[in-house]
């Protein structure tokens, strides 16, 4: 066995909520949440990303495909797909959709797991071990 145990993962299984309020107007804020979510999900953490406010626009068809956090960088949709593959659950805030003229039946990308009420976010926050806001 290696002497340096820092290389080994030994965390308990936990639940983390990432509250995503950033959207296309602040592209530099739109990749890290998914990167972090993917790492945590790979560590057996139950990760929920809840999109609200401008964050819901990232779940609108054609938006996350169209820009990157940094010029010339990987598209946001690919960060989203990496997070999904790692096991992250994506919730979209239903009350936020009308303000951005997003139709929940026709305009959301296939990666969305749940269209959720605010009460779902409240439940997630109350039962989670950590909440991270971007």
């Amino acid at each position, binding site marked *: *066995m*290696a002497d*340096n*145990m820092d*290389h*080994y*993962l*030994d965390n308990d299984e936990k639940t983390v909520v990432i509250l995503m309020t950033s959207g296309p107007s602040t592209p530099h804020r739109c990749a890290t949440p998914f*990167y*972090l979510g*993917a*790492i945590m*999900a*790979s*560590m*057996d953490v139950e990760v929920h990303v809840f999109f609200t406010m401008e964050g819901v626009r990232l779940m609108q068809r054609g938006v996350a495909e169209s820009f990157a956090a940094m010029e010339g*960088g*990987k598209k946001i949709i690919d960060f989203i797909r*990496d997070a999904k*593959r*790692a*096991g992250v659950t994506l919730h979209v805030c239903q009350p936020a959709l009308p303000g951005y003229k997003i139709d929940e039946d026709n305009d959301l990308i296939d990666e969305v797991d749940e269209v959720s009420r605010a009460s779902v976010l409240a439940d997630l926050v109350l039962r989670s071990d950590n909440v991270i806001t971007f």
Partner: protein
Amino acid sequence: MECNGCEFHSELYYDSEYQIWLRREHDDSLTVGMTDISQTIAGKILHVRVRRPGTVREPGKPVATIESGKWAGPIPNFIHCVIVEGNIEVLENPVLLNSDPYNAWIARVEASAGVDAALDTFLTGDAAHEGYCRRAREEDIHCQRKVR
């Protein structure tokens, strides 16, 4: 053997998406590594962490996590197994996964139901080669093993 410049070893065992390879060792443990396709997609790998030795892993529970500059995610696991050890060379120098993906194993595991039962669920030989090449062609993946 190569497809689109992606190295392939017919004696190894692969999952259906050719993300990982498994090699049966003399003591019937299994070493786990990333395929050339996987390391190419990930880009320069900066950090690897393996589950602590002795940890039981169920199918779907990763054996390790990988971080590169543009990608973060699991080394997927498809079998019920126990972690025996991580490859300390790779843990201390993760870029070996890019430069030499088939020698730079990540973890060694013991299959709970026996090695034969575990390997039954993986692809090897000509069938694996065909699927590996198909993925490289269909996704237009051209592998690079130089340290980036």
